[in-house]
Each structure stands twice: as C-alpha cells, then as structure tokens.
C-alpha cells in the first residue's frame, strides 16, 4: 500500500513483463443468444413410468445401528461347605502329634503375658457369668398373652415367576395342577380352544414346571392331541391323568417318560374336548371321571383305559337322550362326600348328581340355574361343603345346596368375562377369580362383599385358568399366550383369622335364610295368582302377569284401541260444539248432525 505524503512520494512497485509473453489479448464482443440444444419433453416416455403420489424418503447420514438383546447362559451355582483344618501351629509343631502339641501348650502356659492376661480376663468373665446367673435379661414376661397381630398393611401379592410356553406358536394354558406333596412342581396343560384356530405346526406338548426354574420345563408330556385338562393324582404324585382336545383320556407316569402310559380308545371316549377330569377317592387310587361338552360324564379306571367303567348322559329330561344333553364344562368332586358330584354346563345350569343311584334317571338329583353363560368353574367351599362357588358370564355366585332357585350371594356384574375361580384352601371366606382382561381378583367376603379385596393385573392378555396351592399362599394363573404366572399372596389373605369360620357360617346361614324366605314368598304370590286367575278369567285377566291366552290379549288390545279413539273423538266434538255455540244455534245443530252421521 503506497504511502501518501505531502510530496506525493509514492512507493511504487514496478513489474515488467514482455508483451509478447502475455499472449493475445481477449477481445470480447456481444453476440445474440444462440440456441445450441433443445431437448423437448417426450410424452411417450412418460408412459414407461407410473406416477406415484408424493413419497417420503428419509435419509440419514449416520452409522447403521441395531438393538439386540442377549440373555446370558444360566449361571449354574452349587452350594458346598469347606472344612478347614487346624492351623496356626508354628512350623516345628506337628498338629497331629499329641506330644508336640502338649509340649507347646505347656510352654505357652508358662509365659508371663499368658498368666497376666488370663487373670485379667478371668475377673472380667466372672463378672459377666455372675450377671447372667443373677437376672435373665432376655426373659419373656408376657408369654401367655399372644399379641394379636392386626396387620394394618393393605393386602398385596407379588409375582414370583412366569413360566412361558417355549414354543413359537403360543397356546393357551387351559389347566394347572399342583404337585400334591410339595408345591414345587406345577403341571400345565396347553391347548388352543379357539375353534379351528390351531395351526399345523402348533406343538401338542404340555409341560411340568419346577417352580424354581422358569427357563425350561422340567418335563414334557407328549399326548396325541393337545391336553385341555391335566391333574396330578393326589394319592400318587408320580402319576397324572389328562383329557385332550379330541376327547381321549391319557395316563402318564413321570417315572416312565413323556409318552402316555395308556391312552383311551377313540371310540369309547368323549366326542368333544374333555374340559375337566378329576381323580376319585377309591381304594386303588386309580379312578377318575371326566366331563365334556358332548354331554357325557365318564368314569375311568386308569389301568384299563380302553373303555370307561361308567357313563352318564346329562339329559335334564332324565332319559339319557344324548341329543338333549347339556354340554359339561366343569366338574366338582369333594372327597368328603364321595357319592355326590356336580357338573357345570355350557347352558349355565349346574347339575347335582348322585353317583350311587340305581337308575340313570335318579342319577341327576337337581339343577341350579343361575348363569347366562357356561359355568366355567365350580367348587365347594372346603370348610362349608354345603356352599359352592360358580363362575360364569360376568359374575361369581355362591350357592347353598338347599336353595335351588337362586344363588345366596353374588358379585356384581364385572367389566369382563370371568373364566375361572377357586376357594382358598386356608381361609374359608377367600376366593380367587380370573377374568378375560388379565386381572386376578381376590375376594374376601367377610371383609368386603361388593368389590374384590385385591385386584391385580397379571398380564395384558386374557387369563384362562387358576389354581391355588394347598398352603394357600401360592397362586398360579395361566394366560392365553401360554404364560403361567406364579404369585405369592400376603400372609393376611392366607392365614386363618380369628373367628373366621363362625363368622362365615353365620353369613352363609343368614343369606340362605333370606333366600329361603324370598323363595317362600315367591311361591305364595304365584299360588295366589294362580287361584285368582282361575276364579276370574273374564274380568281384568291381564292385571298381573298371569297366563293369558292369545285371544284375551287380542280382545284387550282391541278394547284399548277403540276406547282411545272414542275419547279422542268425543273431545274433538266437545271442542267444536263450544266454538259453534258462538256462531249460532242452527249451525250448531247442523254440525251436530254431521258429526253424528260421520261417526
């Protein structure tokens, strides 16, 4: 940058180059635009393309990542103890040698510090010993008064384990059965109950799970057709009996492998899936009976499954007519009452039967009609066998054997269908229900009758089966996607409370009495009606809802109609009369005449 001074002294840099080295100078001139290339759009090319409405294409210039979950191998751990050997002896002393050890000990005993220390310690210790002997500071003063632990905490239940169906195609857990002795093993029956939804590659297996190991089933049971129900033999914990989808009964012995030891013949079995099978109380411990929607209840001896030992057709007409038989969907048997059993049917009726009846007609004793839909679960209260619980449609009902007209207690209509229920084996007033929205409800009827005491959402899909273990604390429920969840109930709901039995007995008695009174009243009313309608058939035959013949109904309807028409016409006439009175007498008369003729 040249400096500008007064004298205009500029620092100038001179750069010289020969003109010839520059090259020719650029001579620019203007020229009009010249079209060089014109590529016209060719519509025919457009036919080769399909017009796509605006497309969204996302691009991201970043590294490709993927999320992946890995489950590590199960860590196998083993507990063992270590026995440590004597040590601490100085190198020259062999602990095994008695002489050397004695000599060493004697040497130590002569040591100054030993003597002093021991004397000191002796006095301290004597003081403690004397203290102990003087007063027992840990004495229990109020041993006799048992503190009533009123657990103020709200009831809870926690999930311990979930056992999932290891197969790709998930099936519903339709039945669960606890191992009779320990509750360490749980047998689960898997099948797909939805009509024609079974795929070809659906596995037929059912599993026995060890409660501690949810990763892998302990044992597989391989039936010829998926099992709908499965029960451990309460007398022999190695044997199980299962009812399958095609109606056959299969018998397993877990010591003999996964294949059934015996299978009932197809011709002699049920024609429909076997929904429930229960072991009976018998000397041999090999009797069971099963129920299915084909309307039959069959008795079997598992040693010879080729044909059932007994057959009962659930015909309400007591004629053994299979066409009119009610489809059985649940079964109930209490070993304390071995001659009676109950069957819950698809039609919502519970049939009470007597096994020892001579003729098939007498086998069906009575029916209880209560539900709008199939009675999915049926169980007597283990403490009050006269009362039983049924579940079907959207309610759970408690019945008393004596009252056949209606249940003595019932829950209000729930938001979703109830699929299974059972009483708690420990507390007479507690029962469990599962619903199709995946909720497990625990009801304590001494505490609250309108709502469940505890309501737990176990999973998102529907729950189909439920079983409480004999200790009352563990509950297993099975879902539609093959997951069996094991829950532990808090001690408040699984320990017998004071006076519970007497309070519940009083409640049942009260409700039963109420129903009896209502029943008696109903009967009275009906009798009165009948006698009254017999006396007065003509007059007002339709005041109460008695039996009316169609003719009477038609006559009544006609009378009603014409009387209404008549009143309306009369009203109109009167109105017109009033208006015309102002107009004049003659016109009035005319109108009257007209009205009379037109009637």
């Amino acid at each position: 940058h040249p400096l500008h001074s007064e004298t205009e002294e500029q620092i100038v840099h001179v750069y010289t180059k020969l003109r010839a080295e520059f090259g020719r100078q650029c001579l620019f001139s203007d020229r009009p635009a010249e079209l060089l290339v014109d590529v016209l759009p060719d519509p025919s090319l457009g036919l080769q393309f399909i017009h796509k409405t605006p497309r969204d294409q996302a691009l991201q210039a970043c590294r490709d990542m993927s999320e992946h979950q890995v489950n590590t191998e199960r860590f196998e751990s083993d507990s063992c103890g270590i026995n440590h050997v004597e040590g601490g002896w100085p190198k020259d002393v062999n602990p095994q040698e008695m002489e050397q050890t004695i000599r060493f000990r004697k040497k130590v005993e002569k040591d100054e510090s030993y003597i002093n220390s021991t004397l000191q310690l002796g006095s301290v210790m004597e003081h403690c010993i004397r203290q102990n002997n003087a007063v027992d500071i840990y004495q229990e003063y109020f041993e006799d008064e048992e503190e009533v632990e009123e657990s103020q905490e709200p009831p809870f239940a926690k999930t311990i384990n979930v056992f999932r169906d290891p197969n790709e195609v998930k099936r519903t857990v339709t039945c669960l059965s606890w191992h009779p002795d320990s509750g360490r093993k749980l047998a689960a029956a898997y099948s797909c109950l939805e009509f024609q939804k079974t795929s070809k590659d659906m596995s037929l297996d059912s599993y026995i799970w060890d409660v501690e190991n949810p990763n892998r089933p302990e044992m597989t049971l391989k039936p010829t057709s998926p099992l709908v129900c499965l029960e451990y033999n309460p007398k022999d914990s190695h044997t199980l009996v299962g009812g399958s989808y095609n109606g056959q009964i299969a018998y397993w012995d877990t010591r003999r492998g996964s294949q059934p030891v015996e299978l009932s013949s197809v011709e002699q079995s049920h024609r429909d899936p076997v929904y429930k099978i229960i072991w009976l109380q018998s000397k041999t411990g090999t009797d069971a009976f099963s129920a299915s929607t084909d309307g039959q209840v069959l008795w079997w001896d598992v040693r010879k499954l080729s044909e059932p030992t007994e057959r009962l057709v659930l015909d309400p007409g007591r004629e053994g007519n299979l066409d009119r038989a009610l489809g059985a969907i649940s079964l109930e048997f209490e070993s304390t009452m071995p001659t009676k059993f109950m069957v819950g049917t698809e039609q919502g009726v519970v049939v009470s039967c007597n096994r020892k009846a001579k003729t098939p007609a007498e086998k069906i004793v009575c029916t209880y009609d209560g539900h709008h839909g199939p009675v999915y679960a049926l169980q007597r209260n283990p403490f009050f066998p006269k009362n039983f619980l049924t579940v079907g449609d959207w309610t759970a009902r408690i019945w008393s054997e004596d009252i056949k007209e209606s249940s003595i207690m019932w829950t209000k209509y729930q938001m979703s269908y109830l699929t299974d229920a059972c009483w708690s084996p420990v507390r007479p007033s507690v029962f469990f229900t599962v619903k199709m929205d995946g909720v497990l409800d625990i009801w304590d009827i001494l505490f609250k009758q309108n709502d469940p005491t505890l309501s737990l959402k176990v999973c998102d899909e529907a729950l189909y089966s439920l079983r409480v273990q004999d200790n009352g604390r563990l509950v297993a429920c099975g879902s539609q996607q093959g997951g069996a969840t094991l829950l532990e109930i808090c001690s408040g709901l699984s320990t017998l409370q004071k006076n519970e039995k007497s309070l519940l007995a009083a409640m049942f008695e009260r409700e039963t009495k109420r129903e009896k009174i209502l029943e008696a009243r109903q009967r009275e009313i009906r009798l009165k009606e009948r006698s009254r309608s017999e006396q007065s058939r003509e007059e007002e035959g339709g005041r109460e809802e008695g039996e009316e013949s169609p003719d009477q109904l038609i006559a009544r309807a006609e009378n009603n109609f014409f009387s209404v028409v008549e009143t309306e016409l009369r009203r109109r006439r009167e109105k017109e009369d009033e208006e015309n009175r102002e107009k004049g007498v003659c016109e009035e008369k005319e109108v009257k005449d007209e009205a009379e003729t037109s009637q």
Partner: protein
Amino acid sequence: MAEVEETLKRIEAHKGVIGTIVVNAEGIPIRTNLDNSTAVQYAGLLRHLTMLARSTVRDIDPQNDLIVLRIRTKKYEIMVAPENGFLLIVIQNPCE
C-alpha cells in the same frame, strides 16, 4: 501358674458354664475343657469376629476398647474377652 488354674477352675465351676477356652495370638487353644475339634472351631471362628468387633468399637471412638463380646444364641451364650492377643471364650447356658 497356680492362680491361673484356680481362676479357670472357678469359672468352670459356675452355674451353667458349659465350656472354657483360652486361645493364644495364633488361634491355638491353649487350655480348654472341651474336645479339641470343638475348641479349634470356636477359636478359629471367634478370633476373627472378636477382632472385627474390636476394630468396630475403636473406629467409632479410638479411646474406646472392646471388653467383652457376648453372643446370645438360642441354646446358650458365648462370651469372648480379648486381652493382649489372648482370648478367653466361655460358653454358658443361663438356665431358667
């Protein structure tokens, strides 16, 4: 020497005392009226516990020191007193 004997005998004579063990710094039972294997077991196990208890007490207050560690179990009471590296263990059954 005789005093030590006398002291220990007096302790053993008290009501309810089941056993006595004197343990040296290496964990070797010097004098005991129980059988050897039991004595060795008690000595080995209680030594560690006592040292831990002692260091706990001294961590809380360095001026403080452990005098006696008493373990009351369902069946009896174990009392351990450390002194100068030695341990005196007494097992007593405070009978009711």
